[in-house]
């Protein structure tokens, strides 16, 4: 159970960030996994010990865990800023494709630039926060699940507060009507950039949490499926509704776990893996068809 909660939490974080970018600011971002990877690697490179003889990477700063964590969000945000400088002006689908391409390039870079990322070998044995206070891994995993829930609650609080602030109101206005927002004297690129950067920071932090969960990073963790799963969680749960996002993440992780309990034999595994894809696809298609605003749609705030 604890493992499921952790993954649900991490996907909820991604969905939360995506909701700020898309639900509030209307940016179609298909590059979630790119920032996720940047966050994860930032954390690892900041905290990794100096390279051993068999390692190809050059930088391991061996900084305290806390700094690594903060760094993962900040560095991801910084990259979002760099990407956003030219890309934030792109409209709709063009932004989607640009961010998608960005995420792919990031994966190739992380695979090939060994001096930075240790290539496909990646980093292993990553230390987990507060691990030393726990004797057994079993009790720790419950603590970690608790930590994740805490973090999700924290992000939830921050984001819902942001959304209700004048900042969030302006973002929504931009989502609703860019021309009118411009007529109201809003520098829409700047606001979009903020949404993009804050979203990236949260995705970056989620990267740290993910690294602690997997205890290793390799480039193959960061495939575009992560982006799609985050989107699916957001879409089926309900854009603009925080409970919806948690529900969406729960459904997606739930589908994957449910098939696990049907796992009885080796041969069945292929079918089960296949039905996971089918179930994920079906649920997305059906929700869009019959409840296009998601299971828990956004409620319009009334002052």
């Amino acid at each position, binding site marked *: 159970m604890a493992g499921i909660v952790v993954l649900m939490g991490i996907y909820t974080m991604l969905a939360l960030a995506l909701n700020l970018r898309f639900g509030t600011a209307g940016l179609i971002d298909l590059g979630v996994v790119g920032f996720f990877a940047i966050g994860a690697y930032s954390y690892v490179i900041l905290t990794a010990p100096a390279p051993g003889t068999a390692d190809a990477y050059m930088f391991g700063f061996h900084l305290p865990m806390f700094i690594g964590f903060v760094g993962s969000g900040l560095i991801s945000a910084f990259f979002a800023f760099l990407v956003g400088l030219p890309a934030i002006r792109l409209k709709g689908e063009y932004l989607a494709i640009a961010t998608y391409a960005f995420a792919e390039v990031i994966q190739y870079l992380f695979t090939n630039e060994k001096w930075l990322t240790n290539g496909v070998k990646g980093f292993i044995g990553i230390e987990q926060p507060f691990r030393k206070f726990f004797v057994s891994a079993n009790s720790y995993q419950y603590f970690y699940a608790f930590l994740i829930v805490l973090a999700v609650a924290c992000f939830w609080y921050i984001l819902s507060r942001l959304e209700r602030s004048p900042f969030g*109101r302006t973002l929504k206005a931009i989502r609703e009507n860019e021309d009118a927002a411009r007529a109201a004297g809003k520098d829409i690129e700047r606001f979009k950039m903020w949404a993009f950067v804050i979203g990236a920071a949260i995705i970056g932090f989620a990267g740290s949490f993910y690294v602690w969960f997997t205890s290793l990073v390799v480039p193959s963790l960061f495939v575009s499926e992560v982006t799609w799963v985050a989107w699916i969680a957001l879409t089926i749960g309900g854009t603009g509704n925080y409970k919806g996002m948690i529900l969406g993440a729960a459904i997606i992780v739930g589908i994957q776990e449910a098939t696990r309990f049907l796992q009885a034999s080796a041969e069945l595994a292929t079918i089960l893996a296949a039905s996971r894809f089918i179930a994920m696809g079906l649920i997305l298609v059906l929700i869009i068809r019959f409840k296009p605003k998601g299971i828990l749609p956004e409620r*319009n705030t009334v*002052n």
Partner: protein
Amino acid sequence: MVLEVKNVSKVFGGLRAVHEASFQVKENSITGLIGPNGAGKSTLFNCIAGYYPPSAGEIFFKQEKTSGFTADEIAKRGLARTFQTPQGFAQMTVMENLMVVPKGQVGEKPWQGLINGKKVKEQEEEIRKKAFKLLADFGLSEQKNDLIANLSAGEARIVEIARQLMLDPEVLLLDEPAAGINPALQNHLIQVLLKLRQQGLTLLIVDHNLGFISSLCDYIYVLHLGQIIAEGTPQEIFRNPRVVEVYLGGIA
């Protein structure tokens, strides 16, 4: 002169929508810009508001050259506009629509919005009061919690004007404000606009119909096929045979 348009041209592909148009708007006046459909009014209007960069010519607002500025920069300098078909933040309430607009909101900085400190709260309260007063002035108090998407066309138009007034503009550009509004509401609108002028606002109204505009404007410019073909007081314009020909056709 609060607004000066000097030899502005705008070309789209091969199409010349506006050709060396020049005109001026006096402070605290109500100036009209009229012309038949396709005359280039909206294009010129968009050039002034910063939605299109002019292909040639210059525009000055309060003696500052604003051609080349983006729309939001121009809006912040006190030149507010409305749209031909009312634009609003559809899935937001009337109140929220108004509250989006004011300049210099501290809470628009994400960290300030997050902390939601005293300054933000005070400012929000101020803005809310201001919006409430505007809505009351326009007779829209009851609709303050309605979504823009659910308003009638006439209401949407008035809300848009109210929303843009939240900018505290010096000049208000109105794009066919009377279109789609029934006569009773039109009269109400005229009263509102006249009152705004009394309060010191300068108005530039674009319309293709002389009727509404003549009862409001001090001075009118007539645009036809991208060029200013006449200017003068409403009376002068009505007597101008060129204008009458453009509007009614040759066989008069």
